[in-house]
């Protein structure tokens, strides 16, 4: 079959590789019908994330049709012919972390947990197509993919919903909602600032309203992204380059004290710092960004501000709920896809996505 393979730093190719097989009795094999490229895939391509090997199949946002199930998958949970979405953190469903619904911290699904523990201080869950530190699982940018422990990790999709509506439930929508809106504790009447209007920030903007936010303010450095933010429901948009962002945000909040919740959706020190300055006393900074460098936490200002900082990787536990909201039309999952390609033309898809400033791409979707 064809698959997108990492072949070295800044080098990705569509290669012919063997079709996946059942490796554990609770596995399923799916025919991939739609898949997408994530911003974090670009960090694999450029070598920013260690422990990639020549030939690794990329992709952790994918969905498709079940073509085979292992002997440990009961028909009552999944059967051949089912259409499924596959959120990227692989959960076992049984360990103490999974019992607490902390699927991204699953203790059993990373065969290389010992190596991950050395680097991160704790073992992470297995993740598809995301280096060997997260388990060495082949990804979904391929014609077929193995879904590990499929009875827990594959969610069936109602026939009336198109791929485009549900594909983004595999990563960005639950990430924006769980790690941003839910961890931020957004409640009715809140003023919410979202710093970074990339796909994940837009997902936070889109779902903040569901939690009752009175107004949502988007901050980004690209005007094209701010236009997208408006489309996803931001009430106010500010370009961070304009300089007086903090004052303009304060002016939109009660007594000028700042936002109730500031959501960080970039992953660099200045944006995290901005969040701690635009949040009101007693507010919450919800970090979603994947940080690669240490950030100074200004405790000399924050020690008296009573703020809460949350962090996390998406668990995917809200996928069934978000699926209901897509079904009822409350969440327009199809808004994210801006470009479509075939698997053969994957290199154009990567180029289009990597040059979002020129192409104005949000998410590129690859169809079978």
């Amino acid at each position, binding site marked *: 079959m064809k698959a997108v393979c990492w072949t070295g730093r800044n080098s990705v190719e569509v290669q012919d590789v*063997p079709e996946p*097989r059942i490796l554990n009795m609770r596995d399923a094999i799916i025919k991939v019908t739609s898949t997408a490229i994530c911003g974090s895939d670009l960090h694999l391509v450029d070598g920013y994330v260690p422990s990639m*090997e020549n030939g690794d199949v990329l992709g952790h946002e994918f969905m498709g049709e079940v073509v085979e199930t292992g002997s440990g998958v009961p028909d009552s949970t999944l059967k051949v012919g089912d259409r499924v979405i596959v959120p990227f953190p692989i959960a076992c469903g049984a360990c103490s972390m999974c019992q607490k619904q902390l699927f991204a911290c699953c*203790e059993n699904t990373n*065969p290389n947990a*010992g190596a991950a523990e050395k680097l991160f201080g704790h073992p992470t869950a297995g993740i598809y197509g995301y280096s060997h530190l997260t*388990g*060495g699982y082949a990804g979904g940018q391929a014609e077929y993919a193995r879904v590990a422990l499929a009875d827990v990790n594959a969610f069936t999709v109602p026939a009336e919903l198109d791929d485009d509506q549900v594909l983004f439930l595999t990563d960005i929508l639950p990430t924006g909602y769980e790690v941003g809106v839910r961890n931020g504790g957004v409640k009715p009447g809140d003023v919410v600032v979202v710093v970074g209007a990339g796909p994940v920030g837009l997902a936070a903007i889109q779902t903040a309203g569901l939690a009752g936010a009175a107004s949502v303010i988007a901050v980004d450095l690209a005007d094209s992204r701010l236009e997208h933010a408006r489309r996803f429901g931001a009430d106010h948009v500010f370009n961070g380059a304009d300089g007086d962002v903090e004052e303009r945000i304060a002016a939109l909040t009660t007594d000028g004290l700042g936002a109730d919740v500031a959501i960080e959706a970039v992953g660099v020190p200045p944006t995290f710092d901005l969040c701690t300055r635009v949040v009101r006393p007693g507010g919450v900074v919800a970090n979603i960004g994947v940080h690669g460098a240490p950030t100074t936490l200004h405790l000399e200002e924050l020690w008296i501000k009573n703020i809460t900082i949350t962090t996390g990787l998406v668990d995917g536990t809200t996928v069934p709920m978000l699926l209901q909201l897509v079904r009822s039309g409350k969440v327009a999952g199809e808004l994210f896809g801006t470009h479509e390609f075939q698997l053969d033309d994957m290199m154009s898809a990567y180029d289009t996505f990597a040059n979002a400033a020129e192409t104005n791409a949000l998410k590129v979707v690859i169809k079978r």
Partner: protein
Amino acid sequence: MQLTGTTTVSRPPSAVYNFWRRLDHLPDFMVHVDDVQVRGDDTSHWSVTAPFGRTVEWDAVVTEDTPEQRIAWASTEGADIDNRGAVEFRPAPGGRGTEVHVQISYEIPGGTLAEAAAKYFGEDPHQQLDDDLRRLKQILEVGEIVRSDGAPSGKRARHEFPQHPARPLTDEEAAEFDLEGTR
């Protein structure tokens, strides 16, 4: 060489004890233990891969058996390597299953020099025991050792760095990793 390791398994002490008490289950998750033949209630014969691929064997006897709490064993006279071990099963706080505490001690043939050499070639016994216990946890919680395309061989995963690429295996590779039956 003294090794200690712990893990917490979301199963009651009785289940973890019962699994471990069948000593022929140990090769399922212990990377160096190739085979354990149970010969009587308390006696068994072990084959183990020592550093540099040597196979060593011994007879062992269960020296202590307190159901649902503790099992201890030791090699008998004439063993290739004198060794002993004990495992305790303690109820974990908050209803979180069982804490498993393992102690293993053995005489390395060749002494400290061999130990240092083994480490140099990537054999870290402490890390190996940690990984053994992760696999025990997987068997008891998931039902089997979790495999990926990069680490397809289950208990030998630690020996695979650099690993198989994270791409599906060919039929030949699957045969090599004992996965012929999985298709």
